[in-house]
């Protein structure tokens, strides 16, 4: 999707959450005041493995007849890494740009290897 008319573009929905210090914050409000890149990777490894049986690569087309070995791997986090690498090279250390990684992982990034 290219650049959109800001007035017609969707806004980040309200997402209230808890920080490690126990404060309640709204992610949508955190993203205000500066350009922010949101990296969404909703599926954890177990779900992706299940999906590999029936999804044909990045197009997401269902393929119930495909043998599992023939189906390209679908990895949301690997998708995001292709954007994260140049992004970090360009804006690493720049406080004017926010980068939020949104994942579906209850225990956070430090435990992610447990499901991978």
């Amino acid at each position, binding site marked *: 999707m290219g650049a959109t008319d800001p007035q017609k573009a969707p806004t980040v929905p309200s997402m209230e*959450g808890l920080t*490690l210090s126990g404060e309640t914050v709204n992610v949508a409000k955190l993203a205000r005041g500066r350009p922010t890149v949101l*990296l969404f990777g909703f599926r954890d490894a177990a779900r*992706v493995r299940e999906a590999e049986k029936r999804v044909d690569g990045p197009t*997401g087309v269902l393929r119930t007849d495909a043998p599992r070995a023939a189906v390209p791997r679908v990895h949301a986090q690997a998708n995001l890494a292709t954007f994260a690498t140049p992004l970090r090279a360009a804006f690493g250390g720049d406080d*004017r740009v926010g980068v939020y990684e949104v994942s*579906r992982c209850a225990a956070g990034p430090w435990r992610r290897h447990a499901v991978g």
Partner: protein
Amino acid sequence: MPWANRLGHYWQRGAAACSSAQIAVIESWVLAKLRASVILPNLRKTVPAAEHVRKRAQPPALAPGAAPHSRARSLLRRVARLGQPYFVSVATDGAPIRRALHMDNALLGHVLLVDAAGHVRWQAHGDAAPGEAERLIQLTRRLLSEAPETAGNSS
């Protein structure tokens, strides 16, 4: 390196140079019940207290010539005071979020560029196509130049 940890490698704890945060969405009601009593206390033990909320190194910049009491200045001051939590745990159903942001395929990674007023200005999914990552960087730079003006129109 396990594939699931690749992104964490780039934005991991200790990479203080990156202004990044991790948002963990909990969709399971069982895990949501355990969040405050089990999950967050365990994470607090493993993460240094200094990284629970990281204050910004410097407040966001204002446009040259901005009025001393402008709405943009007020908004940016509030954002700077808020600090930068490294980790936020959100217990919610992810489907409405995906619908609102037009992320139809939940199996892929989605990248959204959001301006200072919270509007999604650019979106991509899957692996970065040739030139797509450069486009993201280029548009982010453009938003940086217009950020104070946009922020002033937001609240």
